[in-house]
């Protein structure tokens, strides 16, 4: 069941987020900040890992240790797609940050 969007509810949500925007309201609680940092770091390391995986399987193919071409190509695609996702997330974050900055100016 999807709740209907009411202006009161949205205002409440904005009120909730207020302390997390630096310079607006009180200082952001450290826990939330730290959590997001952790999630982002984990995502980046996973993307890095998938690139390394692709690299390793490509080397295995070159050495003749594996015959499975599709495995190598799939891993490269996986690395490509996950990198693109990371890039999109970064772009979205930067975009949000820029909008906040321009809102203050």
């Amino acid at each position, binding site marked *: 069941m999807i709740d209907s969007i009411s202006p009161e509810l949205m205002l409440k949500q904005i009120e909730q987020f207020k302390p997390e925007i630096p310079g607006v309201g009180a200082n952001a609680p450290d826990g939330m900040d730290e959590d997001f940092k952790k999630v982002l770091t984990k995502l980046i390391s996973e*993307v890095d*890992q998938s690139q390394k995986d692709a690299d390793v399987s490509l080397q295995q193919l070159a050495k003749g240790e594996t015959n*499975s071409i599709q495995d190598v190509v799939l891993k490269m695609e*996986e690395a490509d*797609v996950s990198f*693109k*996702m990371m890039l999109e997330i970064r772009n*979205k974050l930067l975009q949000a940050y820029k909008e906040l900055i321009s809102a203050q100016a």
Partner: protein
Amino acid sequence: MAIELIPAAAISSSALDAERARMEITANNLANVQSTGKNGQVYSRRIPVFEAVYSEQFGHDGIQNLAGVKMKDIVADPRQPLELYAPYHPSADQKTGMVKMPNISPIEEMVDMIAATRAYEANLSVIKQSRDIADKTITLGRQ
């Protein structure tokens, strides 16, 4: 793998492996059309047997349980070997002069090869579409 964004990548990969093995069997059958052996020991046509793979033994219904396909077995075609009258042949029977040839029909093998190629291509397009939908979903937020 830590991060899996392309749906069904592992499943389609197993299908490609299976079709590849099927192609190798067809190649081996075609290569051995003329093979003969001593004392009636002759190569017989090989047939691949495919089997569905489940990640668990019980309860095959969940989507997580479906894990693609594998080549379960390679069996010999039970049909009788062909016989050819060639008394000059070193593998020929001393009395009758008949040579036993493998029970392989090149036409049959060619048809099988085409089927394997088409099946491989079908699985390739599954991978392609999966990659595309992952790509499209990721770029959803873009203006």
